[in-house]
């Protein structure tokens, strides 16, 4: 008898309810994804869904498993930054669908600074933050001073950023491929002739972390830095005067204005911070050398959009985003494990979008749960009344 109220009070906790709802969304998403696999090819569907969920565990050798876990983590860091960017803006009442474009701007800035200008990693990283912040601030300023819907301006800026960055990075392109030179190289002009020389200073420090992942050379500073920034965003939102102002602006713009907060200024600042977060995310990927930029790409990288997914799956909580980002990246990489002859790799994108779709039911789930708890809570009450 004593246990039940305890369990109920746990079930009543909003945080626990969000966790439960997110897990339910994941299960439902995987279930519908599995149905899609069944339709494509029934015989291998069970195996395929397991492959997606196992991701790096598909490899039999423990060392390879760990190395591939490292690869997933390398891409988790930028995803986490994008999800922080989205959730930060969302807390202030803005839908930052422009995280993708801000991420692109950050990528362009850090690659150009590394390869074109030969600058060290921390300068490249600062350039990324700045570039993302500027792109974000443009959307913010348009919203604040011209009442342009941020979703519209963000989507347009995504494309503007993409083609500007493609143009900028064509200057540091490897002539034999559509890709730029790796960030470990730099271009120098000696006596009017362009030469490519080694430039390891642009790589993010590994801090010895690579040792934990079977010397996966791409793992390093990015992941701990991303987690640290998630904690910082949590502190900023919940403990500081700025966070108090920004949340008030997001929850009730009129009340914020009434008490003299500079609502317009806050909107620009919010979008600049959100942009900076997405921008630094790009440097966390490209400054590892894990990927190079293709200057012929004509679609905006999905990292920023996946950030929306991770932010919502994490219940818009910065700390929970760490885990949701890892999960989204985990199944995205898992999708790449599938037999391309039978299943498209996009099946994992389908699953993550299904999960997000089900996240729309989180509120519904919470209300139903509370109603169920209410009904249960009332029964003993009436029982007692009957006895008395």
């Amino acid at each position: 008898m004593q246990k039940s109220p305890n369990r109920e009070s746990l079930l009543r906790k909003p945080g626990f309810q969000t966790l439960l709802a997110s897990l339910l969304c994941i299960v439902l998403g995987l279930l519908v994804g599995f149905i899609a696999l069944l339709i494509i090819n029934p015989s291998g569907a069970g195996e395929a869904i397991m492959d997606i969920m196992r991701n790096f565990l598909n490899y039999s050798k423990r060392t390879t498993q760990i190395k591939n876990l490292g690869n997933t983590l390398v891409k988790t860091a930028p995803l986490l930054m994008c999800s922080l960017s989205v959730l930060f803006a969302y807390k202030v009442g803005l839908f930052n669908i422009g995280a993708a474009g801000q991420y692109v701007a950050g990528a362009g800035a850090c690659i150009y600074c590394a390869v074109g200008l030969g600058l060290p990693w921390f300068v490249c990283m600062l350039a990324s933050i700045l570039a993302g912040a500027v792109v974000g601030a443009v959307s913010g300023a348009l919203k604040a001073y011209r009442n342009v819907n941020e979703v519209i301006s963000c989507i347009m800026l995504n494309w503007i950023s993409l083609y500007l960055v493609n143009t900028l990075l064509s200057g540091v392109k490897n002539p034999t491929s559509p890709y730029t030179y790796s960030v470990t190289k730099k271009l120098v002009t000696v006596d009017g002739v362009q030469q490519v020389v080694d430039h390891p200073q642009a790589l993010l420090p590994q801090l010895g972390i690579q040792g934990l992942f079977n010397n996966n050379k791409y793992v390093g500073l990015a992941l701990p830095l991303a987690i640290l920034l998630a904690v910082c965003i949590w502190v900023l939102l919940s403990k500081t005067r700025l966070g108090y102002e920004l949340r008030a602006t997001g929850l009730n713009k009129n009340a914020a204005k009434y008490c003299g907060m500079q609502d317009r200024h806050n909107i620009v600042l919010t979008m600049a911070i959100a942009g900076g977060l997405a921008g630094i995310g790009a440097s966390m990927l490209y400054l590892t050398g894990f990927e190079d930029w293709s200057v012929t790409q004509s679609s905006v990288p999905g990292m920023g959009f996946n950030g929306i997914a991770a932010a919502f799956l994490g219940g818009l909580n910065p700390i929970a985003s760490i885990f949701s980002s890892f999960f989204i990246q985990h199944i995205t990489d898992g999708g790449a494990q599938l037999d391309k002859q039978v299943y498209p790799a996009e099946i994992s994108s389908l699953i993550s979008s299904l999960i997000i779709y089900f996240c729309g039911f989180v509120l519904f789930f919470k209300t139903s749960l509370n109603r169920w708890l209410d009904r249960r809570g009332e029964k003993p009450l009436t029982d007692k009344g009957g006895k008395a």
Partner: protein
Amino acid sequence: MASEYAIEMLNITKRFPGIIANDNITLQLRRGEIHALLGENGAGKSTLMSVLFGLYQPEEGTIKKDGQVVKINDPNDANALGIGMVHQHFKLVECFTVLDNIILGVEPAGKFGLLQKEDARRRVIELSEKYGLHVDPDAKISDITVGMQQRTEILKMLYRDNEILIFDEPTAVLTPQEIDELMQIMRNLRAEGKSILFISHKLAEIMAVADRCSVLRKGKYIGTVNTADVTMEDLSAMMVGRNVNFHVEKKPSHPGDVILHVENMTVASKVHKNNAVKGVTFDVRAGEIVCIAGIDGNGQTEFVYGLTGLEPLVDGKIVLQGKDITNAPIRERSVSGMSHIPEDRHKHGLVLDYSLEDDIVLQRYFEGEFTKHGFLRRPNIRQYAEKLIEQYDIRSGQGPVTMARSMSGGNQQKAIIAREIDKNPSLLVAVQPTRGLDVGAIEYIHRQIVAQRDAGKAVLLVSLEMDEVLDVSDRILVMYEGEIVGELDPKKTNPEEMGLYMAGAKRDTVKKEA
């Protein structure tokens, strides 16, 4: 055999988590009577009406129509049973005509879905003549007076052949003359056999028009009385559970220095091309309560926005304690000694999804006491909130951490008043501070305002409530179509005279005097 009652709600109990909103309530509406439903805010009136309209299902109790038990699952069921309601805030389409609004939802369609409005028009005119509801069927809602809009709402119910008419606080937006007309309309409706449920907390109106009155208090049914057998004092004692002093006790005012000087203030309108406030000039002195009276929509809202900095001025000058604040940002006005109890506590006054303590420091969070090096000083905020909660008797479920949204309207308003008064302002701008509150809370807020005046503060009260204007203020300025049309002494004037000024029928030329 037909029952004596048109509608009966018997032993209704409705629970919400942690609260019993309706505890065994019985309400019996006789056919052809005007039955008042009286209760403070949070007494359970709205919940009871939501049960009647099928928005909530009661845990216990039954509803009977003409003696037959009925089940009301949604508002459509209520409609089918002939139950109609005039909401406090009208549900009209502004850019439609009166006729279009009346037939909305029950449009008479002929062949190919084409509207057949002629029959409808004839019926509307017939109904309006029968009940004395004067409307112009072809006028647009946005062009007609609030009183006519209300008559349109009443016609909507009659057009649908509703037998049971519910009026939710219908007099809140009307002038005294319009209120008299409404009372007459309600009597006409009763004479034609309609049953009326009149929700109100204005005792004088209940005494004037209702046959019987049921009283709720804190979710409980207190009783039903014949209004002929009781006095206003009896009713208020039933509603509040104690005797309430209607008259605001206050000593004569001793105005001191000029605190606020407003000169030729002109503010643009959001809705039309004209200015909403046109060249308003006046002073407010320390130790006096100046009230701006007028019917809703005559520029008071825009005036307050201009004064407090929410909207820029087109022209004019504002001086607070000798300092020109015409173009000062809101924060600067606030720290220079202006406190503002806003008209709409949900829109401006509170961040509803903030905790009570966070809302209490909304005007002071940036002060050193509550912020250090950019970080909030949570323990100080908690301590300050607890102090104000205690001092101003703000009641809430979980104290400082209660979500503002979950608090009752009266306590939300108390929190705002505590916040604005504790700032120790030199000028207190209170806009409709008692809107939608019950008698107990109104009494409390009036006492606070008078106490501020007695402490030597300048108070500018903007109110639509005639009684409040006459009771609380030391000087009345009547605003009509954005201009001050008269200055009245509350001791020498009466509601009728004020009504004439408010309706624009009378105006003085004193306004340029200052």
